[in-house]
């Protein structure tokens, strides 16, 4: 592995698996996923519905227990925490849910919802509770006059702000955002995305941002991991992933996005059929059934390989299929590295 500088990893997932037993067999919801999320970054997780992205997020923050594999948070293995440790972790890792309609308790006011985590953890003394609640409401932009309102009295955008406020109440370091804007209208979606980015800048938060919307994920994430049927098929920096999508699935996913730019209407790359069943999948590439480039060797087990620096792809044909793109990306990388070296040398010279 080529590392540019020392990484400050906050969350590390090592060969994580989550299987569910159902009548028809075993669902491989998350199947051997390894990734690192650095402090202060936003890791976007994309994929179609049913690919296991939410299950992954829920396992990391211990809403579900993984079948096997490890979760390392700030260098410490937290895969199977005891009750006390779990309570501590709840303060460190939080989640924002997709549907602000069903994720808030309809019988609790805005204030009570935000206060609840503070009360449960005894984190704030009683006399400061009021001030702290107000501080959080201001932080997420909820007007004080709705303190006593119930969720049904609020619109979707405000409800989502309450959900964000609740997640932030314990001052977490890591937040799983599970499709936080999918249920909102575009103008409200923009408000919430801006809020999430502002909060990240102010509080140094680290996000795992789960979505099926490629435009949103491109906007908010530093890095993107593409999932298909429980597995990672490609991961890279956002900009590079969009410039050089190497995996056939990523390529067709990107080409399917409708864009508002009339001058950049692209041809869609045809993908056959639909996402197949995650129940007892056969070995070999899971995308093979829909892939336009499928060959005999694709039915062998695949592994995630570093094709370009920090650009991992799980496709046995990628080097042959993307020869040209890889070459171009490599040249770009060399140029960038040259520039960085020159800059670093300059810095040293100036420092002396």
């Amino acid at each position, binding site marked *: 592995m080529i590392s540019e500088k020392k990484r400050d990893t906050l969350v590390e997932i090592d060969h994580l698996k989550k299987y569910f037993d159902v009548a028809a067999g075993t669902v491989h919801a998350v199947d051997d996923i390894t990734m690192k999320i650095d402090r202060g970054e936003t890791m976007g997780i994309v994929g179609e519905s049913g690919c296991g992205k939410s299950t992954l997020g829920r396992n990391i923050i211990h809403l579900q227990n993984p079948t096997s594999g490890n979760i390392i948070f700030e260098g410490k293995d937290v895969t199977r925490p005891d009750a006390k440790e779990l309570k501590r972790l709840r303060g460190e890792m939080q989640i924002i849910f997709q549907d602000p309609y069903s994720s808030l308790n309809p019988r609790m006011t805005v204030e009570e919802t935000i206060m609840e985590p503070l009360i449960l953890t005894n984190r704030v003394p009683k006399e400061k509770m009021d001030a702290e609640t107000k501080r959080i409401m201001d932080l997420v932009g909820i007007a004080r006059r709705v303190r006593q309102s119930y969720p049904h009295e609020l619109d979707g955008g405000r409800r989502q702000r309450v959900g964000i406020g609740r997640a932030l109440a314990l001052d977490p370091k890591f937040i799983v955002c599970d499709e936080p804007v999918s249920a909102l209208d575009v103008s409200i979606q923009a408000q919430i995305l801006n809020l999430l980015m502002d909060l990240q800048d102010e509080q140094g938060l680290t996000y795992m941002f789960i979505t099926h919307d490629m435009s949103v994920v491109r906007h908010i994430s530093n890095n993107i991991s593409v999932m298909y049927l429980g597995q990672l098929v490609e991961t890279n920096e956002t900009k590079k992933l969009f410039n050089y999508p190497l995996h056939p699935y990523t390529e067709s996913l990107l080409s*399917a*996005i409708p864009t*508002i730019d009339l001058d950049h209407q692209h041809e869609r790359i045809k993908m056959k059929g639909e996402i197949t069943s995650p129940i007892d999948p056969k070995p070999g590439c899971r995308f093979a059934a829909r892939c336009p480039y499928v060959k005999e060797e694709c039915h062998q087990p695949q592994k995630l390989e570093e094709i370009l620096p920090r650009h991992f792809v799980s496709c046995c044909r990628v080097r042959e299929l993307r020869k040209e793109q890889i070459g171009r990306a490599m040249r770009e990388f060399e140029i960038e590295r040259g520039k960085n070296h020159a800059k670093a040398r300059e810095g040293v010279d100036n420092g002396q």
Partner: protein
Amino acid sequence: MDGNEFLEVKDLVVEYTSGGRVIHAVNGISFSLEKGKNLALVGETGAGKTTVAKSILRILPDPQGVIKNGSITFENQNLLKLNGSEMRKVRGKKISMVFQDPMTALNPVKTVGYQITEVIRKHDLIAKKDAIEQAKKMLEMVGIPGERYYEYPHQFSGGMKQRVVIAMALANKPDLLLADEPTTALDVTIQAQVLEMMSNLKETLGTSIILITHDLGIVAKECDIVAVVYAGEIVEYGDKESVFRNPAHPYTKGLFGAIPDLHSNARRLANIEGLPPDPSEPLTGCCFHPRCKYATDKCAANKPELMEITPGHLCRCFQSAN
């Protein structure tokens, strides 16, 4: 609007009554459509887009939804004047609709094939055997093998169900298809398949489509004419090229700014502050003025008309007129 259009909606006003309150869902919407063209009704939740479509088919919830004013002329007859049995001949035959959620649009206890055959037999006196044959052809046209005729909705995935719904809507080769957020419940890859299929059908059958959506990306790909709807009114109207290249209304501009686009690199999205107005409360002036950055006293006091800013491009804003 010269009177020989295929569809003309004029001054449509629709109100709902709910819990003693009157909700002004559609406040004087007018537009026309030529045969073979696609129109997009774009706007956010609650703007009144679906109500317009339901008014055309006259399937508003009864008695809550009432068409208070206006006319809907389709192939030279005013649909609002037709009686029940005349209207039933139009519905599903000349005009049909695809609903947003394919999971609830199909009857779970009938086979998908039966549901398509039903539509065909309702309008055509043909033998059952021929109807079944035709239904199978429809299934194949939307990319589902004919053998699956005898299967039930739960045996299909979301994307396939939506294609069954589309097959049903197109079974009688309607002249007009109302597609209400047909791909919102679907994944992007499936969305692309469904949209492509719809535009192929437009080519082969010559069907005009009114596409209701909040996704401007889909509009860019699929539509000829765009009508931006806000608070029950059309605020901007024109062909796709003029609206997308020169959006004139502050709301349309806001919508474009609020979308993270693949080809822009803005870090912050330009959001529209505030919320759409409460449709149960009467509003004076421009419907958008409480959220508009450019609003003046005039905007709060007077209601702007739809004004032509360039040929064929209309905008309901005092600012854009000069």
